[in-house]
């Protein structure tokens, strides 16, 4: 019988040459450190970001794309580590809804990420070693505050649009709540004003899987030659299921077997769906830092715009001048339409300018990353309307 643990091959963690990533990098918070929600001042820190298109003379055409939990700044170009195409090439590029000929697209790796922005793998100036768990716990608001410093650095006063799916959508909402005068339009996709109990629960499984891996070593593994490979892979496998839908899994895999005509009476990957998940887990480990995964999932768990506004979500957006376009997908059970609807009701309560579209798609939560024609049409229409009001040619 073959080994049941098909994901524990390889010992190395991600090999990312931070110094040679494509794109840009800036040191922020040198004069005044960024005071994080947890109370810790952070600074100076690095933000790695990528841009596409040109900023116009009026600086009115900047779009900030906020990436999701495991995304990064490489929105519309081959990934420097995996060589796979950018995570949102569906949406960003020449002739795409986020047309690089019309808009200046910015995407920054989030604080506590692992693609060049300061995170748990970065060097702690106090010790000269990687932070590990000494890195302060980050919130969505901290990520957004860091992005605001980047936008200031780029000399942009008002973003034409802040857009993102999933955790990206959380950042969009935080932008609209924290900096309404600096955001012309906001597009939270497959998102929510607060992370649900079910979602926190799934994140907790992922974190426990990582922390149960002996190679995790209390978060101090950077100088060792072992990496919490299996833990991070299992975390990814669990999470990946939540990004899909029952019907998509059934359609894609059914009960089909992997490279065999009958079951092997063992615990190897008999089923295609098992093989697929293992592959997802293994490839993820090649590009992601386990500690970053802990920190970023935590940031999502802590996100609750409702609680911090006297349990009234509407109070997060008083007299907001922002034009919103809220988008959800029928098969998304991680951030279901009901969450988007609650957000829309809150925005109605402050008479905000809001569009809300639920799109029929069976791809689950990840639908925002897929080729969904109605998503294209919605975004193109909304952005065109907003650009007209903003006076962007």
């Amino acid at each position, binding site marked *: 019988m073959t080994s049941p643990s098909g994901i524990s091959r390889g010992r190395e963690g991600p090999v990312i040459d931070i110094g040679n990533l494509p794109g840009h990098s800036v040191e922020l918070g040198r004069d005044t450190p960024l005071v994080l929600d947890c109370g810790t001042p952070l600074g100076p820190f690095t933000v790695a970001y990528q841009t596409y298109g040109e900023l116009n003379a009026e600086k009115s055409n900047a779009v900030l794309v906020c990436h999701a939990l495991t995304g990064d700044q490489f929105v519309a170009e081959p990934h420097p580590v995996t060589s796979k195409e950018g995570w949102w090439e569906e949406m960003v590029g020449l002739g795409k809804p986020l047309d690089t000929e019309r808009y200046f697209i910015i995407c920054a790796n989030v604080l506590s990420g692992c693609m060049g922005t300061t995170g748990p793998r970065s060097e702690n100036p106090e010790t000269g070693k990687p932070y590990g768990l000494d890195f302060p716990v980050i919130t969505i608001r901290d990520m957004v505050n860091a992005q605001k410093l980047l936008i200031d650095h780029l000399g942009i006063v008002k973003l034409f649009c802040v857009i993102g799916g999933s955790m990206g959508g959380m950042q969009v909402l935080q932008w609209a709540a924290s900096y309404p005068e600096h955001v012309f339009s906001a597009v939270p996709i497959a998102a929510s004003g607060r992370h649900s109990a079910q979602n926190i629960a799934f994140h907790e499984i992922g974190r426990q899987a990582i922390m149960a891996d002996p190679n995790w070593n209390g978060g101090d593994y950077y100088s060792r030659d072992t990496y919490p490979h299996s833990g991070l892979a299992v975390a990814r496998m669990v999470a990946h299921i939540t990004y899909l839908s029952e019907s998509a899994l059934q359609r894609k895999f059914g009960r089909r077997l992997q490279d065999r005509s009958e079951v092997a009476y063992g615990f190897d990957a008999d089923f295609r769906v098992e093989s697929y998940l293992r592959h997802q887990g293994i490839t993820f480990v090649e590009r992601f830092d386990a500690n970053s995964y802990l920190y970023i999932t935590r940031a999502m768990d802590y996100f609750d715009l409702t609680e911090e506004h006297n349990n009234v979500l509407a109070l997060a957006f008083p007299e907001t001048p922002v034009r919103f*376009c*809220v988008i959800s997908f029928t098969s998304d059970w991680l951030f279901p339409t009901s969450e988007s609807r609650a957000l829309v009701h809150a925005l*109605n309560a402050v008479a905000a300018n*809001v*569009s809300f*579209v639920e799109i029929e798609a069976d791809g689950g939560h990840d639908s925002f990353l897929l080729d969904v024609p*109605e998503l294209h049409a919605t975004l193109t*229409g*909304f952005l065109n*309307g907003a650009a007209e009001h903003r006076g962007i040619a």
Partner: protein
Amino acid sequence: MTLEDIKNGKGALRADLQVIADLVAPGSRVLDVGCGDGALLAYLDAQKRVDGRGVEISQTGVNSCVAHGLSVIQGDADTDLKDYPSDAFDYVILSQTLQATHNPKRVVSEMVRIGHRAIVSFPNFGFWRVRLNLLFGGRMPVTEALGYAWYETPNIHLCTLKDFVAMCREVGVAIEKGIALAHTGHAGDIHPTGLFTNWLAEQGVYLLKRD
């Protein structure tokens, strides 16, 4: 005719929508409840530069509106108006939708709470053709303005112009202006005590405000 035509001022609006559009002051804040394909919103946006929003019950209608750059959400006139703050809009519009709501009284009350003015248009069940249809045909009337058989109609709360005026009085809503639309599309002001209007109007359009 497409929304693009309407935006470019090429196409003509449906007769009742044109009457409503003429009542709206330029540059005002407008909520169109039951905005359908967005024709009125597109017209008001392009021709009157209003700050327009829409609510539409059909997801297909909503998605098409948003894809044309209109600010529209999926929602229900019966349940979703309560979310809006008072006096949030200059006009709240309900065109050809009142008769399909579950609680027309509450919908109209909410409209005049949310907006400084409300504009309501609906088919007149007192129109002579409707009356004759039932009187001589002995069947539920099916006319141009009421194009459904009884078993599939979404129109569950049909009323006559007189019925509507009486309801407004009952819920404390003042009628600032009433306009009758004849079968020909001809529009004329409704005299409050006009005897024949309730016979001749195929549709009524009313401008309302809180009493």
